């Protein structure tokens, strides 16, 4: 039966009246708008306000800035292209073929996401650098990994999981029925792929490409480690701040990084609103299996996923190797393994792990709580400014990490006042700026997770509670929150992991007192202390894998962080 959609009266006045008559709603809105205004809108505006006519003129007239920018765009396009293409083949192999050990290979695809973001770049230096294990030591050739090739390869590996998640989600959502119907109408192997599968997967592939592109544009650690003379804009902005303390110029460079991201974000939102082929029903069609590949192609797929997995293991393997190999012996060409370096590094940097754990936990929870609040307001309440709140909640996804980092530095280095009234103390050099910036960075994830959680709770379930005598507060505490718990935990854990490995987003606000493990990995690697950086990386990975295992164990497999 067709349900007629009924809507009660709307309009600004009605909305405003609703808000004013409900004090709890008023408080929630005040918190939401204060958070979004202070920590998203204000830093953005503040950064823009730091640019001057002169800095803009400089950017467009001086060769160094323009070249770095062109290189950033160029290398990011290359990385986005290869990461998307490789991830598509990988996801297709897993979702569409009968290859062996799918579960295992699915997990492997996430590995680079569970490691500090500078680990890939570092691993490439360890393998192919001047003193690389594979090239110099074992084969005895020298290759030039520094520059574009290194950045390209490192980003392709580092951002592979991101592309994989987006593409595999869309491939999973395609009903096998559609493809079986196409086969029934006579579409053969490649024809089927070209005429049905690819067009249906296109939105996912496109969004994977754009996601990698945006992240590669703002990537700091890999280009810094591997760029050499190939300087990209985020690295340049960092140099301008740390070298010349020229905040205006750095703001201009960062603003230029925002432009393509923002344009992509807006265009994508527009396209997605126009057409969406794949309807995600959440109910996979049971029992139907597609057969789209011959035996030969299947063997090729199996070999392909195996090679990708091998590459990832090689990256982790080399880092582990350096973590446990004696550095002095290594330079002499001997391989001596010892735990000494590892334990020394751990002891010396224990406080950074403690900081990382505190900051990542707090940020993970904060992002999920704020995300939950925003999602609740957005899906269940009517108020003026709803669209603004929704836009602001997903905006941090679009802000380049280094942009956000610099914006926070510029915004919170002194007390914030509104006229004579102080509203926020100085945040720089405190733990709070580290927590808040990570939470803002992760907010879109927490928000989207909570939003889809709310969408899954049919409104009639809340009505049923009301009908049985529960008031608004009781409905939220006894029905809504318990139902959202799995989504909340999985987004908090996901945000925790992202905060543990982040470098770019905190690069401008990190201070010695609140130094964190992921920054140590980057800075030690940048200074050439590979065994320390390796040891730190392995420890971070161990913490993350341990957390995932713990969540899986405690929830008896019901809470899936990556799915």
């Amino acid at each position, binding site marked *: 039966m067709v349900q007629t959609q009924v809507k*009660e009266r709307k309009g600004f006045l009605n909305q405003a009246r609703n808000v004013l008559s409900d004090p709890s709603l008023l408080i929630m809105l005040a918190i939401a708008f204060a958070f979004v205004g202070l920590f998203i809108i204000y830093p953005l505006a503040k950064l823009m306000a730091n640019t001057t006519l002169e800095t803009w003129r400089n950017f467009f007239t001086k060769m160094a800035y323009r070249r770095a920018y062109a290189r950033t765009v160029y290398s990011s396009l290359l990385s986005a292209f290869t990461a998307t293409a490789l991830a598509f083949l990988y996801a297709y192999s897993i979702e569409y073929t009968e290859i062996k050990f799918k579960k295992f290979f699915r997990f492997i695809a996430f590995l680079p996401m569970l490691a500090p973001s500078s680990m890939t770049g570092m691993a490439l230096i360890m393998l192919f650098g001047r003193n690389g294990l594979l090239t110099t030591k074992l084969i005895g050739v020298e290759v030039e990994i520094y520059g574009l090739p290194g950045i390209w390869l490192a980003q392709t590996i580092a951002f592979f999981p991101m592309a994989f998640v987006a593409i595999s989600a869309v491939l999973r959502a395609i009903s096998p029925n559609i493809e079986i119907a196409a086969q029934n109408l006579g579409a053969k192997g490649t024809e089927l792929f070209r005429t049905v599968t690819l067009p249906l997967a296109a939105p996912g592939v496109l969004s994977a490409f754009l996601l990698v592109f945006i992240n590669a544009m703002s990537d700091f650690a890999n280009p810094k480690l591997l760029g050499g003379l190939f300087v990209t804009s985020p690295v340049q902005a960092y140099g301008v701040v740390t070298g010349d303390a020229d905040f205006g110029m750095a703001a201009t460079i960062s603003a230029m990084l925002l432009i393509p991201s923002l344009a992509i974000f807006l265009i994508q939102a527009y396209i997605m609103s126009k057409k969406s082929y794949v309807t995600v029903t959440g109910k996979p069609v049971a029992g139907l299996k597609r057969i789209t590949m011959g035996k030969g192609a299947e063997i090729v797929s199996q070999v392909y996923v195996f090679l990708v997995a091998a590459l990832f293991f090689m990256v982790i393997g080399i880092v582990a190797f350096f973590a446990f190999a004696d550095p002095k012996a290594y330079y002499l060409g001997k391989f001596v393994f010892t735990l000494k370096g590892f334990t020394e590094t751990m002891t010396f940097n224990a406080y950074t792990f403690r900081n990382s754990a505190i900051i990542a936990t707090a940020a993970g929870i904060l992002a999920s709580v704020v995300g939950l609040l925003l999602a609740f307001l957005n899906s269940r309440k009517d108020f003026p400014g709803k669209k603004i709140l929704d836009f602001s909640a997903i905006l941090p996804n679009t802000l380049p990490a280094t942009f956000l980092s610099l914006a926070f530095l510029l915004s919170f280095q002194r007390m914030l006042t509104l006229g004579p009234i102080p509203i926020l103390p100085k945040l720089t050099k405190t733990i709070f700026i580290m927590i808040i910036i990570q939470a803002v960075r992760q907010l879109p994830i927490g928000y989207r997770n909570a939003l889809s959680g709310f969408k899954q709770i049919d409104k*009639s379930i809340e009505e*049923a509670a*009301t*009908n*049985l*005598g*529960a008031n608004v507060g009781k409905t939220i505490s006894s029905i809504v929150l318990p139902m959202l718990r799995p989504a909340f935990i999985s987004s908090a854990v996901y945000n925790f992991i992202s905060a543990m490995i982040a470098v770019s987003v905190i690069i401008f606000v990190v201070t010695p007192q609140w130094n964190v493990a992921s920054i140590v990995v980057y800075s030690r690697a940048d200074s050439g202390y590979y065994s320390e950086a390796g040891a730190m990386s392995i420890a971070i990975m161990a913490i993350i894998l341990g957390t995932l295992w713990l969540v899986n164990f405690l929830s008896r497999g019901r809470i899936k962080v990556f799915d």
Partner: protein
Amino acid sequence: MQGVAHVNKYLIELKGIHKVFGTNAVLNDINVGFEEGCFVTFLGPSGCGKTTLLRTIAGFYRPDGGEVWIDGKRVDMLPAHKRNTPMVFQEYALFPHLNVFDNVAYGLRLQKLPRKEIESRVREALDLTNMAQFKDRSPNQLSGGQQQRVAIARAIVMQSKILLLDEPLSNLDAKLRESVRVELRMLQRQLNRTFIYVTHDQSEALAMSDVIVVFNKGRIEQVGSPMEVYFKPVTKFVADFIGVSNFIEGKARVKDGSVMLEHAGRSFSGLTTSDFKDGDHAIFSIRPESITLGKSECTFDSQACLPVRILQGMFIGEKVRYVVKDQVGMDWVIDQHDTQEVLTGDAYISIPPDKAHVIKE
């Protein structure tokens, strides 16, 4: 209840209810009352306002005008959670994170009843719905029919004099629907509570109700017993919506208490509940089962007899349904029970006198 002076014969009374969504009046001057212990059905096509009225009684909508009275108290300004109007939702709306027992106990726990009492009342409700053995299951381990039983148990446990049901059978398959129908009716008799049941399925309404309220476009078309709305519809909409009917229209002639009408050169006579005088416009509603179809011309003069051509005959189990065309080009639907064969070609239909119900519009 409160020893009020005037005794109200209705348990639920709706007075002049108006409700507007946007610019669309979904409820327009609804005035109706229901006695205690009867099975009331709100019947009508989708979008007619029946669900809106049910939700207005439950308090999910506030009427833009009019009053809702329950058990002698005016409740339309009361929020939904204070009304004690338990409802069975169309999608059941079970709490997925609670097991069957906790789902049913939810409302009682909110009332902070003693644990012993909650346990015995939940057990009673689960016994009534035959769900006692599933009390530890979670809703997603239950079939659609079982989920629905839990939804019913969760509502009846509240021991309100009222139970609201919003198309509760629409998500069940046809076979199950028929058996649950019978059970629901028995349950209502056993509990002797007032059930208000929303459906768009006229056969459900006829089978279960004491009172049927027929809705169309936000208005009540007719309130009556199943027999009344079926055999004595007061509007063409009701006659058309409930069951299948053949309509002929024209200027009426009144003779000996019967209303007469000419169609295709024959004279038809029918009975009515309305006042008719000569020349009034009359609509004759003739049910398919009131008509006989045969190969030979009718034998009784009193019957209206028409030569027709059979367009189609469908064997549908207990009867054969024919579609025939008469000489002035009108299609008739005719049901014949006790037939061994399906006729084709030319034939005659005959309508006994006073089998037509006459509607004044």
